[in-house]
């Protein structure tokens, strides 16, 4: 495909010359020749001049043709060579080349007009100088001038337009420049001119021959018929040729438009817009389509970018919300631990409170018991004192008994042998008395010691009582504090329950967000996939492509 196109570019000049000059000369020269032979009844003298002037005219019209073709086609051919060699092309060179290329039809048309005017002038001016030219001949020469110049111009234009259109969209001109100030020629104008020429040329030929016919008396009918047939053939072929050129040009342009539209329809926004050679209605359409394509490109590029960003963002959101959900679940489990700890603590506090109350009771009881103990100790002390008193009585009795025993012993001793037995008894009684006295004394001492001990114990108990009362009070306070703690723990439990609810809500919300984000991600991916249908080329509005296409060439 590419090589074919390159081949086409290499053969640009030859094809151009063949088609333009070929069609122009193949068609026009016979018509002109026919007209001169048939309608301008040249005299012998005039013929003698024409024999010299026609070659001179042909020669003089051929040289400018060569010159024009050279000056027109060479810059284009140079550009094509440069393009084919792959060398870099500067923007201004490219702009110039494109302008030259697009001006080819106009220049060719001017070339045609100039050639025919100079050529015919060189042919016919000597005729006017050296011979008498009849009025009919003058009219017919004017007709000839009109036919040749107008047809030459129009055919050159149409063929060159077709030719440039064929070479415009094959790669040599990759980008379009809107700001080239080129003359505009509407398709409607071209059609009108084509129809006019297709109609007027045979008419003028016929009119011209009619003038010859009425001035020449003996013309046979079959000659007339032949002439009419020839003129009709010329008219039909002219109409056919002009229509062909026009239709071919329009259909090529429509194909270019169709290609562009099909590319856009297939989502290929990177493909270049197929351009049209001459500024006309179809070029308006292609320009509009180019703008449409650029706008679409921009929008879709932005949508693509946004959708990829949305995809990434929603994925991030999804993962973030999953993390959030996880964290919330962890929080919930921690809260459960806290709750169980709090319940344990509450149970401990309750136990403490119960224990404190029990301890308080016990302390009160102990206080009462100790008071009772103190009373008992006092009783004991009294009893001990009584015992001491009683032992002193016993002691007294023992002493007196002792004395009595002594006295008895004295009496027995004084009685001599007679009192010996009595003395023994008295001694025994004395011993008993002494022992009982000793025992009583010991008991007394013991009781005194006991009293001291008991009094000490009583004092200690008395001292203990306020301590125990204080303990009881403190324990009461502890009990009250425990109750407050219990209330506080209950409040904390309530708060934790509320917190737990909130955390669970958070977890649910996070899960919802996560699923939403996942949905969003899939939708964004779907959107991306959908947008993948379009092949875009960067951001046109701020990118290089658009700028180069639209703004740079000023």
């Amino acid at each position: 495909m590419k090589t074919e196109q390159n081949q086409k570019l290499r053969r640009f000049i030859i094809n151009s010359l063949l088609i333009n000059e070929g069609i122009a000369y193949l068609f026009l020269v016979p018509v002109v020749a026919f007209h001169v032979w048939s309608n301008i009844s040249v005299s012998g003298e005039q013929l003698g001049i024409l024999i010299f002037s026609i070659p001179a005219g042909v020669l003089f019209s051929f040289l400018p043709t060569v010159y024009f073709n050279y000056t027109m086609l060479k810059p284009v051919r140079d550009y094509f060579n440069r393009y084919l060699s792959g060398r870099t092309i500067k923007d201004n060179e490219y702009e110039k080349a494109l302008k030259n290329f697009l001006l080819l039809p106009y220049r060719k048309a001017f070339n045609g007009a100039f050639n025919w005017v100079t050529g015919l002038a060189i042919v016919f001016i000597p005729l006017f100088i050296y011979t008498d030219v009849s009025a009919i001949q003058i009219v017919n020469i004017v007709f000839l001038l009109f036919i040749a110049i107008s047809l030459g111009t129009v055919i050159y234009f149409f063929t060159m337009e077709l030719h440039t259109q064929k070479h415009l969209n094959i790669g040599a001109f990759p980008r379009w420049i809107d700001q080239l100030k080129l003359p505009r020629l509407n398709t409607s104008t071209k059609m009108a001119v084509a129809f006019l020429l297709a109609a007027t040329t045979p008419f003028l030929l016929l009119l011209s021959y009619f003038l010859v016919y009425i001035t020449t008396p003996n013309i046979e009918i079959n000659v007339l018929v032949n002439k009419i047939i020839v003129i009709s053939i010329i008219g039909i072929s002219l109409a056919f040729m002009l229509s062909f050129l026009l239709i071919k040009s329009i259909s090529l342009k429509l194909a270019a438009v169709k290609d562009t539209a099909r590319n856009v329809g297939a989502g290929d926004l990177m493909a270049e817009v197929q351009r049209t050679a001459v500024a006309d209605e179809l070029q308006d359409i292609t320009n509009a389509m180019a703008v449409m394509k650029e706008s679409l490109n921009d929008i879709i590029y932005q949508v693509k970018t946004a959708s990829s960003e949305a995809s990434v963002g929603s994925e991030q959101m999804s993962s973030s919300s999953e993390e959030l959900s996880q964290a919330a679940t962890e929080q919930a489990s921690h809260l459960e631990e806290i709750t169980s700890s709090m319940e344990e603590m509450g149970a401990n506090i309750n136990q403490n409170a119960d224990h404190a109350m029990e301890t308080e009771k016990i302390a009160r009881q102990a206080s009462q018991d100790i008071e009772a103990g103190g009373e008992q100790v006092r009783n004991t002390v009294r009893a001990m004192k009584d015992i001491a008193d009683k032992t002193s009585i016993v002691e007294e009795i023992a002493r007196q008994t002792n004395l009595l025993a002594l006295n008895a012993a004295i009496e027995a001793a004084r009685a001599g042998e007679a009192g010996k037995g009595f003395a023994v008894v008295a001694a025994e009684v004395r011993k008993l008395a002494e022992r009982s006295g000793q025992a009583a004394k010991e008991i007394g001492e013991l009781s005194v010691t006991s009293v001291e001990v008991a009094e000490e114990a009583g004092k200690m108990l008395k001292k203990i009582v306020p301590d125990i009362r204080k303990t009881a009070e403190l324990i009461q306070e502890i009990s009250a504090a425990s109750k407050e703690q219990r209330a506080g723990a209950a409040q904390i439990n309530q708060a934790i329950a509320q917190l737990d609810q909130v955390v669970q809500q958070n977890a649910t919300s996070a899960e919802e967000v996560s699923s939403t984000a996942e949905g969003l991600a899939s939708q964004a991916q779907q959107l991306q996939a959908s947008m993948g249908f379009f092949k875009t080329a960067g951001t046109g509005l701020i990118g290089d492509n658009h700028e180069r296409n639209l703004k740079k060439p000023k």
Partner: protein
Amino acid sequence: MNETSKNQNSTYLTFYLDEELFGLNILLVREVLEYTAITKVPMTADFMRGVINVRGHVVPVIDLRQKFGMETIEQTVNTCIIIVELEIEGESATMGALVDGVQEVLDIAPEQIEASPRLGSRIDTRFIQGIGKLGERFVILLDIQDIFSSQELSMISSVHQQENETEQDA
């Protein structure tokens, strides 16, 4: 109460004076009394504490502590009065001796009695009949007759006389 009976009797009443143990032959002792209120008699010797009533008889009481030069102390529950029978100028007389406490009546064999030492006793050895050994301890056996001088004895007897006179008066 002749000398032999006196000598033959080896039973003694032991008593305390200022922690020391003294002994009196039982034949001289009539009885032992608890301490009772002593009626002071004016114009008598210091050791004469006064008189007491013993079943109707006035008996003078002397303080042996004071007599022996020991410091006087307040009486205790153990303080006793030993009623002693004395022979003054051929007449028998009773006298109370205030002692710290009476111990017991016991026999001290003559072998256990040694003569009074010549030195180192607070009491004039004149009064000491001997020293009885009771195991580890010593008992100073007193000769109560010799404790008092004749003048003192006369004082004691005079008290008796007065008493006798009052009895007679009564």
